[in-house]
Structure formats: structure tokens, C-alpha cells
């Protein structure tokens, strides 16, 4: 077996001197020119390398160093075949699990204490998926579910965790190129009490990071994570967290009470709002926006819903799992408490366990995302991702775009904190949204439009504070290598008469298909099922409109977010069928409508 990047017995690089990258990066960051109108930077905010123990067991031996190289467009050996993405990324955060980071050190570093322990050897040497999964169940799942000492016997204590965290830190520093490619110090806090996914990714603004990340072994309740984050902030560190997979949360991510059963009050709401500016809308294990069962009137709700999640761990779908519900519940909390605990902007990610950031291209999904579990088309067509869902129900994952003044760690982190972000289901379309008064129907140039947007309104992620019905200036452009756009929608949610309500408005559609009654004539642009090619003629490359809420009530709490739809494209399953000759069950989709979701703008009363 070839193991590039693994530890070695002899010291080839012993004499190599290393510069001090941290100091260099900080200096360079302030020299990068700023664009006050901001640029959309595309990147990954959720990826695991071999440092994450579950990824390691599934066969991943790639390091954060490898992941950052892959992100910059280099070809890397992934599960035995060379692989690369078509377009380099602008930024990446490697988010290895903090749980078992110490074990990863023992597993991955020849000569490290614990490396030769029987269990460590067994993990490393797992000859097939079945053995690997048995070990996973015994040493990862069972401890995560609670009870007993969570660490396997080869665990060498805190020092090992610190060593791993330091190695991740060093790789993250090494690849940071201010102005060109941004890396962010981050990790995943992974807690699943009672099978409810409560996972959070934790992001640091700069090199001021703790010696050791806080894991669910130290505290499995998000409130404990926030308390730790507060201690970090008190110590001068800048940090926020991003929850993901609310679709697997058993309704507990947007719950009525804390995990300990205390009804959500003002303190809890303030803490959560402060710690968590963003939520992951979509990733490999499904889109968490909405599902058709609970939103039957949203004709585009049937998209990467990952419904087979419900067959495992008792994670049946409830309305309370989904982001649109969470936004509405947050608005209601604001009405009741004066604080919105769920005031979330949007990001997307992959949660790839292959060490391959933003490997999101449907036509380039040849190596899958979870090691041995989905490495080939033959496996993908028939298998489960053990303990989670059907592989055919997974998707390559989503992307985050951040409107920032420069491609630097500080600028990107600040824009994420301010929620000036949008998520896409993979393509690189761009979307801008401003809420305010006095926008023009048409602008001479893009710059003039954006300048006016900032001058007269607030961007995505902000609060509309006017007293009249808000105008929304919306603009979107296609992914240059993708199909044209179908339409832009605004989803409004509000709280009135004790009820949470929401409605989807079509705001502008390509080819003037938006009728006076607000309906859109459907566009007939099917894909070519023989080749996977999309329709390159229909739709528009750019859509722009100014929309005013027709049912505005200044006394109502509300949120508004923009959804952009492109024309249909082939799903990865069709490419597997065309290229590898496999056959997916008939009910598996071959065609999808990819999309972007812009962070909401809120209207808060008082």
C-alpha cells in the first residue's frame, strides 16, 4: 500500500529549516488591497482528513497538508486514484473532529506513543470495510453515544491531542497566501446525544487559538461548548460556531428547550445568537432547508432531501429539523423574548471524509466522499453509508460563498460573522441582495448597482430597520460553466396571530415568464439523458429585480431570504450510470435543479 504523507523512520528533512509562517502571514494580510464593493470568494467550511478518526478508519490517510493542496487545484492520490477539482478554491477550513484527535496522533505518526498498541494497529490495518466498521462501532460510535471512558486504550492523554492540533495548525499556516488563498483555523465539535446530531464547526479568526480544542468528551451539551467559547473570547480569542445537519437533529437543533430541558430564555438566546451567526444549509448528507412533506406548496422543496436518513438511528424527519422552520421559530422567539436565538446566515459544505475540500462537481464525483464506503460506482449504486443513509441519497456537497473585501482570513471571517454569505448546492453562481428604500429599476453598471445597494440598504445577513415596506434589490449571475438561471425567489417568513407562516415569492424569471398574478410559466429545458449535457440555450445568464413586499406589516417580525434556481443539470448518479454502466434504482434522481441560498435579512419589531 502506498502511503504518501505518512511518518517515516529516517529523518530526511531533519536539517531543513522552517520559516515562521505565522508572522509572515500577519504582515502580508494588511498589504492585500481591499475592494469596498466586495468580491464573492468560494470555499469549503467543512472537511475531514485522516486526522478525524472515523475518516482514518474508512481508509483516509490524507493530511490537512494534502487537503490544502487539493483545494488549490493540485492532483492528489485519493483512495488509490489521482483526483482533482476543476476549479481551485479561494478559501478552506479543515474541520477535523476534536474527539479522538489524540488517538489520531498515535495512529498516524510512526513512533508516537500508542502507535504500536494492538487496537491502533487494528485500526490502521483494517483489511476491509466490514472490519473497519466493526472497529468504528466499538471505538467511535459507542463512546459517542455516551457512557464509559470514550478513549480507546492506546490514547496517550492531552499531550497527544495538543500535538495533533498543533500539526493541523502548522499545515493551516503553511498554506495561507493572503490575497490568493485563505486557510482558517477550525475544527469540529461532534456531539450526538441520543442520536440527535448537535455537531458544530468552530472557527477562529486568526492565529490566536487555544492549545487544545474543546471536544464532546469534555462536554456534550452545546451550552458547554458556548461556555468554553466564552472563556476563549474572554481570553482575547475570536471564535464562532456553525451547526450542521439539522436534518439529523431529531428536532433538537431548533428546540423549545435546552438539551437539559430548561425552556429557552433570554440568556440562552443571547448566548446562542452571539456564538452562532451561521448554519450549514446543505452538505453531503442532505439539504436541510425544507422537505416537501412539511412544505407542500414549495414546488422546489424536493431537492437532495436525503430521506433515507430516517431509516437509521430513529432520525425520522420532523418539521422542527429544517432551517426554514428554525428561522421562523427564531422570529417567534424574538417576539416573545426580544432576542432571536436562531438568527442564522447560510453556508454550505461537504463534510467529506476523504480530505477533499469542495469536491462538489456532479460530473467529477468518481472517488466519492467517505473512503471505502462509496469509493466506486459499483459500491455507490448498491450500498449504505453505514449507520447513516443510502449512498444513492447522498450528494457531492455544497459550497460557501463569502462577500468579503479581500481574500484574507480576517476579511472572510469578519464577513462570515456578519452573515454576508450565501450557500450554493455546488455551482458558482453569484447572488447579491440589499434591503432598503429608493433603489433604481435599472443601473448603468454593476458597480453602480452595488454602490447604491450599500448606500441605501443593508446586505444579506443584515436587519432592515425602515418603517415602510422594504424594497429588495436582488441580482444573480450564472456559474459560467453551468446552465443559465431559471428564476430568483424570495422566501418570507413571519409571525402573526400566534402562528409562524412562510411564503415563496417568485421575484424575477428568465425570458419574462413571470406573470402578473405572480406565477411563473415553467421552463422546458430537460437535460440530455444520453450525455448528461444541460440545455445551453434557455434561461438567462443574469437576473435582476427590485421587489417590494406586498403584504408588509411594520408590526410583524419577519425574515426574508433569496433563493436562486438554475436550469436542470445531470445528477452524479446519471454520470455513474453513463460512465461505469451501473444501474441505480428507478426512484433515484438523475436530474436536479441546483441553487443558491442567500443569508436572510430580518425585520425585527423593537
Amino acid at each position, binding site marked *: 500500500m502506498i502511503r504518501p504523507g505518512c511518518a517515516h523512520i529516517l*529523518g530526511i528533512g531533519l536539517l531543513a529549516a522552517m520559516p515562521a509562517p505565522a508572522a509572515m502571514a500577519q504582515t502580508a494580510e494588511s498589504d492585500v488591497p481591499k475592494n469596498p464593493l466586495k468580491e464573492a470568494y468560494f470555499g469549503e467550511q467543512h472537511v475531514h482528513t485522516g486526522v478525524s478518526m472515523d475518516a482514518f478508519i474508512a481508509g483516509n490517510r490524507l493530511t490537512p497538508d494534502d487537503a490544502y493542496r487539493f483545494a488549490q487545484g493540485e492532483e492528489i492520490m485519493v483512495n488509490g486514484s489521482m483526483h482533482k477539482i476543476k476549479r481551485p478554491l479561494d478559501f478552506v477550513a479543515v474541520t477535523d473532529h476534536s474527539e479522538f484527535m489524540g488517538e489520531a496522533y498515535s495512529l498516524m505518526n510512526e513512533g508516537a506513543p500508542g502507535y504500536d498498541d494492538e487496537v491502533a494497529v487494528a485500526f490502521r490495518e483494517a483489511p476491509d470495510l466490514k472490519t473497519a466498521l466493526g472497529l468504528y462501532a466499538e471505538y467511535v460510535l459507542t463512546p459517542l453515544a455516551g457512557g464509559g471512558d470514550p478513549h480507546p486504550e492506546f490514547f496517550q492523554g492531552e499531550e497527544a491531542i495538543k500535538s495533533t492540533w498543533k500539526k493541523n495548525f502548522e499545515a493551516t499556516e503553511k498554506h495561507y497566501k493572503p490575497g490568493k488563498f485563505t486557510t482558517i483555523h477550525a475544527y469540529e465539535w461532534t456531539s450526538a446525544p441520543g442520536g440527535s446530531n448537535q455537531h458544530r464547526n468552530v472557527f477562529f479568526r486568526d492565529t490566536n487559538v487555544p492549545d487544545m480544542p474543546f471536544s464532546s468528551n469534555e462536554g456534550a451539551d452545546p451550552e458547554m461548548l458556548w461556555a468554553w467559547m466564552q472563556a476563549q473570547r474572554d481570553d482575547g480569542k475570536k471564535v464562532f460556531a456553525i451547526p450542521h445537519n439539522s436534518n439529523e437533529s431529531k428536532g433538537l437543533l431548533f428546540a423549545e428547550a435546552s438539551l437539559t430541558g430548561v425552556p429557552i430564555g433570554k440568556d440562552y438566546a443571547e448566548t446562542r445568537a452571539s456564538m452562532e451567526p451561521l448554519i450549514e444549509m446543505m452538505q453531503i448528507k442532505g439539504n436541510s432547508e425544507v422537505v416537501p412533506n412539511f412544505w407542500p406548496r414549495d414546488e422546489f422543496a424536493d431537492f437532495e432531501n436525503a430521506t433515507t436518513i430516517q431509516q437509521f438511528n430513529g432520525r425520522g424527519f420532523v418539521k422542527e429539523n429544517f432551517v426554514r422552520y428554525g428561522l421562523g421559530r427564531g422570529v417567534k422567539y424574538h417576539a416573545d423574548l426580544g432576542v432571536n436565538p436562531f438568527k442564522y446566515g447560510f453556508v454550505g459544505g461537504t463534510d467529506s471524509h476523504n480530505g477533499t475540500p469542495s469536491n462538489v462537481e456532479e460530473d467529477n464525483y468518481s472517488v466519492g466522499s467517505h473512503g471505502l464506503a462509496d469509493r466506486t460506482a459499483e459500491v455507490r449504486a448498491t450500498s449504505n453509508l453505514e449507520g447513516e443513509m443510502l449512498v444513492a441519497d447522498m450528494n457531492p456537497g455544497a459550497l460557501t460563498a463569502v462577500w468579503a473585501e479581500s481574500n484574507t482570513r480576517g476579511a472572510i471571517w469578519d464577513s462570515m460573522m456578519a452573515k454576508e454569505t450565501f450557500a450554493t448546492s455546488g455551482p458558482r453562481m453569484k447572488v447579491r441582495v440589499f434591503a432598503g428604500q429608493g433603489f433604481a429599476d435599472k443601473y448603468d453598471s454593476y*458597480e453602480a448597482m452595488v454602490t447604491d445597494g450599500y448606500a441605501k440598504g443593508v446586505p444579506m445577513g443584515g436587519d432592515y430597520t425602515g418603517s415602510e415596506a422594504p424594497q429588495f434589490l436582488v441580482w444573480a449571475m450564472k456559474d*459560467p*460553466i453551468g446552465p443559465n438561471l431559471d428564476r430568483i425567489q424570495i422566501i418570507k417568513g413571519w409571525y402573526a396571530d400566534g402562528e409562524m407562516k412562510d411564503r415563496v415569492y417568485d421575484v424575477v424569471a428568465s425570458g419574462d415568464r413571470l406573470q402578473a398574478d405572480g406565477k411563473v410559466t415553467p421552463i422546458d429545458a430537460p437535460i440530455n439523458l444520453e450525455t448528461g449535457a444541460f440545455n445551453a440555450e434557455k434561461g*438567462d445568464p443574469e437576473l435582476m429585480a427590485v421587489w417590494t413586499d406586498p403584504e408588509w406589516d411594520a408590526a410583524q417580525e419577519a425574515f426574508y431570504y433569496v433563493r436562486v434556481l438554475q436550469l436542470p443539470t445531470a445528477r452524479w448518479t446519471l454520470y455513474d450510470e453513463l460512465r461505469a454502466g451501473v444501474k441505480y434504482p428507478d426512484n433515484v434522481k438523475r436530474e436536479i435543479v441546483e441553487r443558491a441560498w442567500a443569508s436572510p435579512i430580518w425585520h425585527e419589531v423593537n
Partner: protein
Amino acid sequence: MLRQIAREPLFHFLVLGGLIFVAWSWLAPPEPAGSGDEVIVIDQSRLDHLQTMWKAQWKRDPAPEDVAAIIDRHLQQEVFYREALQMGLDRDDEIIRTRLAQKMEAVASDLSSLMQPATEEKLRAFHAARPDLFTLPQAFAFRQVLYLPSEAGDARIKTTLATLRSGGAVPADRRSKLSLPLDWPLTSGQDLNNAFGGGFAKALAKLPVGSWSGPVRSGLGLHLVQVTEIQPERLAPFDEIRDEVARQYEYYTVLDAQQRVFKELLGKYRVRFDAQGVPDAVIQEYARP
């Protein structure tokens, strides 16, 4: 990766330990086994190592009674280990087999790197041997003015082309159409295809250099284009990308190493298939007459 490992104190210790071991073996070859007076040495570095491991586990300094226990345990392990070797208990043990094979793989990688250190000469040879890694694709510098597909029949396209040809300015409403810059410095064909949609670079390659022409179709619309420079595909000069070559060299050397060493070592053996049901291709590959 190697450099990171090189900075691990534990690694330094192992290297040092290895050197001491080599020196010791050379200076004082061990007595033949079973003579009754074989030596087990607890020197300072051995004891330090044992204590470091103990401290990592218990997170405190060992007390004198702990040191006694550490030494006791070490001696017991060492004696059992040596006797087990004498009795051949290591043979046909699956864990020991894989562990030793794995160590050999690591040795192979390192041997290979030792035999092929990244010298100037090696790097230059690698650079020359892998044009696929170091060729800079064809690149274009140009100005462009975009009209959307819905404006395809627009008379302005022609008049704008005439204006531009006679030295006129780009119309204000076209300066940043679709947020796309007017001026593009030398950009590779691949990057252009990603920014404009497939086939755009190919279309640019056919345009005259210096004058405005078009419209050229892209994934975004119709472009009037003034190509200012076409840089042909070329191998990036070694001196400009030395660090990149070194990085790729290290990556591919490790990638190739085990396979190469395996093939060489395999040459020392003759593989014979007595079993039934081995695919012909496998027999062809491994069995020598």
C-alpha cells in the same frame, strides 16, 4: 510532512536512539544468545524515553516507586521479547507480519528518498521528465465587452465594434457587465474556460492580435474582444518554479518509492503458483519461467 515530523521531539529521540543503537552494535556486538550473560543495558537515553512515555500517559513526573515499576515492566517486556524471538514466536503471527511489512514500506520510502535526495540535478531531471506537471498552458491577455444572449440582435453590438475599432471608449453600461472585468491580464485557457464557459479560449486563439473583433460566443453571452497577447503553451522555466518542482518531486518520489522498491525486491524471489483459480493476468505478471 517529513519536515514536520523532523521537528517532533519524539522523532529526534528515535533518530538519536537509532544512531546510538548502530554505534553500540558496532562497538559492542551482543554475546551469542543463551550464554547466560547476555546484556540488557538501561542507559540514560533509554530511561529518559521510558519516563517520557510514562509522563505522557499519567501527566506527572514519576515518583521513585514509579521509576521502579517502569524499569521492572521494561525488563519483563525485554526479556520476554528476546526469548519469544529465540523461540520463533514472531513467525506466522499476522500482526507481526503486517507490522514488519509496514515498517519495510516506510523504510522503502525513506531509502528511496535517501537514494534520490532532491538535488539540483534530480530536480532538473524531474522537471524535464514531467512536462505534464510543469507545462504552462496557452494564455491570453485581452479586453472584452459583453452583450447578453438576449441582446444578440442588438444593433449596438455593431456600432460599438466600429467605435472601439476607431479608438473610441467602451460604453459606460458595458464596463462591468455581469460583474466581469473589461481587462484580462495573461490568463490560462483553462482559467478562461472556467470564467467564461467552455470553448472560450479556443475561440480567442483564432482572433487577430491587436485589433477589436467579434462577437465571440461564451457561456455568458457575446463578446467583442481585443486580444493583446497570446502566450503559447510552454514549459515553465525551471528557475521560476524551483520550489514547485521540489514539492512535486517529494510527493511523487514517495508515491513511486514503495512500488519501485517492491519490484526490485521481488526480483530476488521466484513466485510459483501451485494453486488453482489464479487469474492468468496475475500469473503472467508475477510468475517467471
